[in-house]
């Protein structure tokens, strides 16, 4: 029974990995661009949740939406003020720009919030659900289910709506999309908004159950990178499966080997995967 509980816990955390990783993979699919500041978007989402709870009160729906909205706006601003310009520059400038952004966001957070760990004050979610003997903390359960629903929602937005189709058209053939009258810069700004917004809401969902400090962005950024590589660059469904798998592997290795091994196991498997299948598990060869 304990093992089943570990598995469920891993999947619920993995669902949040899936959500913020789908943002990273969207940007890659859209413009072959790796955003090294993606983990910092997640971290900022956590602080937005904290500020909203402290200042305005309200439940997970309120601070989740606030984090999504705030980070959506930040994503659009980052695209318009930074990314749009460096995209025309050399590869090194593209890489360094988001590295720089990551540092800027991280140290701004240190400056404002200090390096201390914080956690959300007790929110309306609490308690434990007993499903056939498996104990599930309600906050994790709600966050995990919401994360999967949002990831699927992002996938449906991309594949089933007109705006999603236009976004993917720009990703597939920028010039042909322009011939249709689509403005690539607008679609890319939207992609950055969606990517940062999903990172932000993932952060808010994570904040429900875990304490954090400004440096968590680094870990999440790395996790997202592992998930995206595993799922195949540019694939939202791939990121979803891979997120769940990584969450599961972490939980199982923490259970069997001890908590300090959970990241080591993930990165070791990741290195082995890169060596055997550089295109990722679900990526095309």
């Amino acid at each position, binding site marked *: 029974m304990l093992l089943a509980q570990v598995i469920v816990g891993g999947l619920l955390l993995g669902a949040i990995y899936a959500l913020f990783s789908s943002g990273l993979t969207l940007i890659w699919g859209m413009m072959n661009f790796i955003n090294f500041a993606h983990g910092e978007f997640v971290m900022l989402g956590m602080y937005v949740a904290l500020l909203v709870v402290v200042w305005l009160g309200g439940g997970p729906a309120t601070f989740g939406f606030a984090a999504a909205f705030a980070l959506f706006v930040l994503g659009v601003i980052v695209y318009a003020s930074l990314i749009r310009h460096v995209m025309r520059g050399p590869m090194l400038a593209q890489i360094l720009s988001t590295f720089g952004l990551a540092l800027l966001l991280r140290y701004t957070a240190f400056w404002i919030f200090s390096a201390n760990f914080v956690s959300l004050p007790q929110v309306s979610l609490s308690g434990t659900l007993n499903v056939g003997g498996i104990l599930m903390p309600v906050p994790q359960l709600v966050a995990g289910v919401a994360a999967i629903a949002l990831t699927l929602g992002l996938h449906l937005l991309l594949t089933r709506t*007109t705006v999603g189709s236009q976004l993917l*058209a720009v990703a*597939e053939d920028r*010039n042909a999309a*322009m*011939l*249709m*009258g*689509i403005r690539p810069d607008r679609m890319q700004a939207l992609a950055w908004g969606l990517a940062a917004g999903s990172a932000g809401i993932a952060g808010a969902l994570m904040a429900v159950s875990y304490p954090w400090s400004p440096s968590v962005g680094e870990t999440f950024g790395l996790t997202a990178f592992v998930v995206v590589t595993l799922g195949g660059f540019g694939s939202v469904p791939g990121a979803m499966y891979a997120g769940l798998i990584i969450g599961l592997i972490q939980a199982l290795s923490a259970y069997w080997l001890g908590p300090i091994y959970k990241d080591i196991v993930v990165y070791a498997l990741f290195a082995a995967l890169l060596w055997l299948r550089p295109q990722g598990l679900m990526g095309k060869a």
Partner: protein
Amino acid sequence: MTELRVSHLKVHYGDLIGVSDVSLRVEAGSIVALLGSNGSGKTTTLNAIAGLVQPSGGSIEWRGETITRQPAYAIVAKGLALSPEGWRLFVSQTVEQNLRLGAAVLADKSRMAALFERVYAMFPRLTERRHQLAGTLSGGERQMLALGRALMSEPRLLMLDEPSLGLAPGVVEALYETLDRLHKEGLTLLLAEQSIPLALDIADYAYVLQTGRTVLEGKGADLEKNEQVQEIYLGIATQPGAGDTPRPT
């Protein structure tokens, strides 16, 4: 009335020259052919008109307005559409999604249903395959989709860049019949092709490009009879013979 006027167009690709001096006019309701061998500058000319490449000299006028350096998304919104070389379909999206993307500039979205109906009536094959990915279509079906997608924006003038490229002869004939029908329904066409006979058959007026310049122009029927066209165009010298002499530009 002159719909489109290109004057002394010049396009550079870095240090390389795409076209050095292209001038042409398209009258409302006509079919104009842009002929020339591979590398003569047809694609560059059409892409410059459509706004995909920036001219380094000359001017492009559309219905009295200078559109020389406007971006492609603004130009198609004015009713000047290009179906690009190689069709450039969105192969990872469905037939229906491709058509809908073609209608992205429609100001009046309520026209959408009627436009879908028109395209599906014109190409029943596309109706059968509407939920299939564009990447799974045959060459002929891809051509239909490219044409249908371009028509979804309800253009006044449609530019087609080598629409017959890589198609089986029977399919090309069907394509030209469709173009003829569209023309009779009032569409103005600017058609870039390498294969002269079909293009000249259908065209009211034609321009011949050679190494980035318009070197010859005339009525379609006149050019068809002219051996100079064969010479310039195919690079084969022919016997001097009868036929009207189109004026060199």
